């Protein structure tokens, strides 16, 4: 079982990201689960969302303490929130920033990846909403599910009006992230 934690701010679509992630894994033929941090967070406040991916039905319902992957949608959260907390040594963290991984000085033995998701989002979506971009990068980096499954998940979860442009964002991020590795 792989456990994923997503950090973002209220309004950035972190919960939706976790849901799309779980849906993509489901389309990949795996079992999955996504849940929010059950907070009362309002727009702008730090939020957390979770997902689990496994080969059998996921029974565990407790929070994720030792994630395999962490996605950080907004690098300004670093320092505000302990984004690497519990991250497994053999795991990975993907941060939305224009900086290089080393510049972040993250306290972790896990692999650190950076993606300038905001730039991609502004180019393609014309808005700084990075959740689908980060998922494209996640798919490219972790190979937990295919691009096809992710595209299918985006189309299922997002309203038709914005689905296609997000699919484009996902595809772009996926291609770039393959180069990152």
């Amino acid at each position, binding site marked *: 079982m792989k456990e994923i934690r997503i950090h973002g701010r209220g309004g950035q679509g972190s919960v939706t990201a976790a849901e799309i992630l779980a849906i993509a894994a489901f389309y990949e033929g795996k079992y999955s*689960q996504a849940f*929010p941090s059950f907070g009362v967070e309002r727009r702008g406040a730090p939020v957390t969302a979770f997902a689990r991916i496994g080969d059998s039905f996921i029974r565990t*319902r407790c929070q994720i303490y030792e994630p395999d992957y962490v996605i950080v949608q907004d690098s300004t959260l670093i320092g505000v929130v302990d984004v690497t907390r519990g991250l497994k040594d053999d795991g990975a963290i993907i941060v939305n920033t224009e900086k290089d991984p080393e510049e972040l000085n993250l306290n972790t033995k896990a692999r650190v990846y950076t993606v300038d998701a905001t730039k991609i989002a502004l180019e393609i979506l014309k808005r700084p909403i990075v959740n689908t971009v980060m998922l494209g990068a996640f798919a490219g980096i972790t190979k937990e599910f295919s691009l096809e499954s992710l595209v299918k998940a985006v189309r299922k979860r997002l309203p038709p009006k914005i689905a296609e442009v997000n699919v484009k964002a996902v595809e772009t991020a996926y291609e770039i992230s393959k180069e990152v590795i």
Partner: protein
Amino acid sequence: MRDIVEGSRAVAEAVKLCRAKVISAYPITPQTHIVEYLAEFVANGELDAEFVRVESEHSALSVCVGASATGVRTFTATSSQGLALMFEVLFIASGLRLPIVMVNANRALSAPISIWNDQSDSTAVRDCGWIQVYVETNQEALDSVIQAYKVAEKVLLPFMVCMDGFVLTHTYEPVDIPDQRLVDDYLPEYDPPIKLDPENPVTIGPIADPNYYMEFKLVQDEAMNEAKRVLKDEDEKFGEIFGRRYGLIEEYGTDDADVVLVTMGSLAGTIKDVVDRMREKGKNVGLVRVRLYRPFPKDEIVRALKDFEVIGVIEKDNCFGFGGGALFHDVRSALYGKSNAKVIGFVAGLGGRDIPYWDIEKAYEMCYEARVKEVPDVVWIGVRDWFRR
């Protein structure tokens, strides 16, 4: 059709499949998504029903009472304070023998106000005459709503499907959404023997003086006991059609277990993973999940637990002034005279406090300890001591 949806969506799909005709609801976190999906179904014409946007939970249930008494299938959903506000009408709905189905998204009761999950709300109304089922997964939530209508309408009692707020309601996971045709086969149209109809006028809700009141209550109690048998049968029939059965209780690893935990709701899933892990380390532990809480499956509980030396009951509610949760008291009471087991009440997860693996392991370890030494009857786990200093 297998799909991956939010728990609230799974419930809404079930209500749609059951063709509820009057849906009434007042918003309260974490119930909201359920009724939002239903409002959407009605607005899109996917569900042919009246959606009544009431001004309180008291009225939400009262609308269901009026509609159900007029002979149509009804649904409402609530949580916590909403359930507490319904308290008065809960008893009336069961006393009037109305097969209303309600989903309670389990949430802690105020004060302090908490929107997070525990089961204090619905365990507090365990004696209100509603059938209560606590589900572990969103699939079970969906299936239980369908079973609920079938059972409720057979015994003429209201049915509360309790699902952990957020933990299930807001979680996406794979769910099989049954075929409408199969559900229609399983669940016939609602046609109650007594209803408000000018063709055949009846008086519903008369005043009963001390000469009559007790007989009404006795018959109601008999119907509750009957509900146990009916749910068992209907669960079996459901299994034949849909391939999924849940039973009144579920046993996991109890055959050769040294100690056992008993619980209700979604916590059972996490515990099952802990059971597997501990067994890998040579600790043979087991789990009994109580699915049907009211009527209480006494015989099943006794059969499953009577041979254990130590039984821990872990639950998300507490009985103030006695200690331990409601399930703890019920289990101990059911075992009285049938077993000399030490029963420990573990109070956990109140107000959304997470119950991680290690807290469950601790509970199992304490059960092992109880085999060799004195341990307290009631233990609160997962609490910190910041407030003592």
